[in-house]
């Protein structure tokens, strides 16, 4: 699946005030891949995700997307490069209905492909169709996650960033969501960059993976390699029931 490099993160350092959260991170995502970034709480996974979107901005290093340097672009300009995000905590619009949330996702193209894409999202997540007129805030956690991914897909992204899609969800729902991501990647060739605590699920899904500790990428390899790696097993997988 080794296509051209889509996202290239080189030597990125991000600070919150004086506190350094990212310590010179190098990550590449190639076209057509699912790349997983795993790590413990506070390792800097979500910070990296947000840094790609320029909030907070990287103090040093470069982020290149499809050959364009996006390090200094404003967040909304980065989104217009066709990078879509299902952010940590989902961040759906709670008072707007499911349909309106999806509509917001399609604002880049001014709803040109709206009807077509809405149908695609509903095929992927039939549950959302049942909840069409409900407010986002009244959905269950799993449905909110589906809505968040669906909203990101409405922008027809080249790269989909997912920040902890399994957070706080029942195992069955997690499986549904991971299946949907695999499906998207297989049928539409969508490139996915995934941040996860659920290391086992994420690495099984991923083409390649990175392990992050204290703002540094300490290990990388294919999903299978990392799953077999004793250190990874000890740190993230043992004690699980997998």
């Amino acid at each position, binding site marked *: 699946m080794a296509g051209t490099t889509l996202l290239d993160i080189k030597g990125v350092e991000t600070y919150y005030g004086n506190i350094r959260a990212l310590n010179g991170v190098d990550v590449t995502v190639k076209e057509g891949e699912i790349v997983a970034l795993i790590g413990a709480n506070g390792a800097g996974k979500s910070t990296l995700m947000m840094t790609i979107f320029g909030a907070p901005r990287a103090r040093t290093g470069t982020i290149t997307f499809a050959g364009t340097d996006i390090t200094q672009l404003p967040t909304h300009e980065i989104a217009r490069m066709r990078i*879509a995000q299902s952010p940590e905590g989902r961040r759906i619009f709670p*008072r707007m209905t499911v349909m309106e949330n999806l509509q917001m996702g399609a*604002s880049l193209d001014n709803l040109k492909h709206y009807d077509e894409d809405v149908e695609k999202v509903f095929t992927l997540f039939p549950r959302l169709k049942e909840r069409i007129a409900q407010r986002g805030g009244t959905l269950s956690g799993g449905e909110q996650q589906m809505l968040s991914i669906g909203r990101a897909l409405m922008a027809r992204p080249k790269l989909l960033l997912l920040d902890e899609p399994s957070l706080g969800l029942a195992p069955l729902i997690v499986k549904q969501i991971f299946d949907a991501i695999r499906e998207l990647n297989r049928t539409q060739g969508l490139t996915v960059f995934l941040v996860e605590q659920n290391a086992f699920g994420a690495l099984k899904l991923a083409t390649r993976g990175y392990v992050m500790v204290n703002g540094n990428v300490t290990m990388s390899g294919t999903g299978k390699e990392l799953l077999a790696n004793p250190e990874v097993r000890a740190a993230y997988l043992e004690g699980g029931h997998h």
Partner: protein
Amino acid sequence: MAVTVSRESDSVATPTQRALKEAFYAGAIALGLFVLFIGLKTGQNMSNELVLTQRWGLLAAVVIATAVGRFLYVAYGQPFMANQKIANVATGLLPASVGSRFFTLPAFIVAVVAAVLLFLFNSSLAGWVGAEPAGYLQFLRALAVIYLLACVIYYFRAFIHANFTKLGITALVLYPILVVAVLSLNAWSIAGGLQGSLKWVDNFGIQILIYVMLAWGLNIVVGLAGLLDLGYVAFYALGAYAYALLATQYGLSFWILLPAAGCMAALWGVLLGFPVLRLRGDYLAIVTLAFGEIIRLVLINWREVTNGSAGISGIPKVSFFGLMTFNVSDPNYIAKVLHIATSSAYYKIFLYYLILGLCLLTAFVTIRLRRLPVGRAWEALREDEIACRSLGINTTTTKLTAFATGAMFGGFAGSFFAARQGFVSPESFVFLESAIILAIVVLGGMGSLVGIAVAAMVMIGGTEALRELDFLKQIFGPDFTPELYRMLLFGMAMVIVMLWKPRGFVGSREPTAFLKERRAVSSSFTKEGHG
């Protein structure tokens, strides 16, 4: 270890006992609260000395009224409300609602008869019973009319609910015509009807509609975009002064200056918007509050231009699209052109339709914008700014357009206000005005046009109606001025609405995106104040 279970049944009080206890507490609290407010009154005597008047009787009355009210509510009100929710075991039906028991046909007929009789024999009864009880008779007549209206609304509530907007607009369009017709019949002359309609069209109609327009304009900023603006009156002032200055100095027509004032206010909206782009919530509120005050202080102190506190007078009237004027001395005065009797009511009725048109324009633009990308972006911005940005929405321009659009309608309303009053001064643009407009938006349910219109009608109409309650002077003495209590009314309405309907009159909202049918989205399960 032995556990002794205390017998709960010993401590359960009957409603009456509980009511007595609560009444006692309520009375004690009222006593504590009002002992200085009501029990003592400071005043001046003839030789300019401070005198303390003791009013223990009044204090006792207030305390007893509070205690009795609490007793009745706890002993009878609460059990009654609870019973309303319990279905009859035998029939399985809920008890007949209070509404259908209160609005019955016999009572309706009695009210019709009473109202008609009181209208027909108003003057003869007044002569017969004397001036004082006649005040009560007029009050009785008003009560009968209100009851009749409430009956009609109650029995047609489904129809009214379904066609609220259409009915509302029709009623607003017909309002001046109906007022003139009814009053002409009452006075048996059209001139008398026109004269009498002044109060109803001007004080109630135009006054309410100005606030409806201001609240709808502020709704774009606060209700849709979620930017708490406490200085909205500044844009109202800018619009008013723009018209006042340009019309008096350069003699420009209202129809040129109306869009000009709107544009100017919008420009200032953008100017205010730039420095506050990063602010939200409380911080934004403080800066906008300061902005409102700055504008007012500039108006007071920039004497060379604004004439300071004395204000600007002699602001020209609006012409009928340049075809006719409303100045009696002009050759194309409306009565001369149309060959009808001279009356000042024409101008008021014309202004009524003008502000109604401006209101409808505001509503139309708001409804249209909500369906356009920018309107949807406003609503999304209110919910989550970070999510908005990551969806590719430029939050800077989104915020600035919200400020500019809201300010523009404030400017329109301001220039209309200047034209209607013929006089502007900084007095009219104090912080209280901003607070009232914001209160109307919150009471109505943020984002809901209908709710806000109803709130404006109740609040502004209510304060105007206080002026009509002259009979209260017979109860509280001749120096009792009911309109001084309008802020009390505002406060009470705020507390009551926020207790019972924490999301405003209309908490539900119309979705802008739907598959097949449009359904209102219920406000249940959303946060308070987040309709």
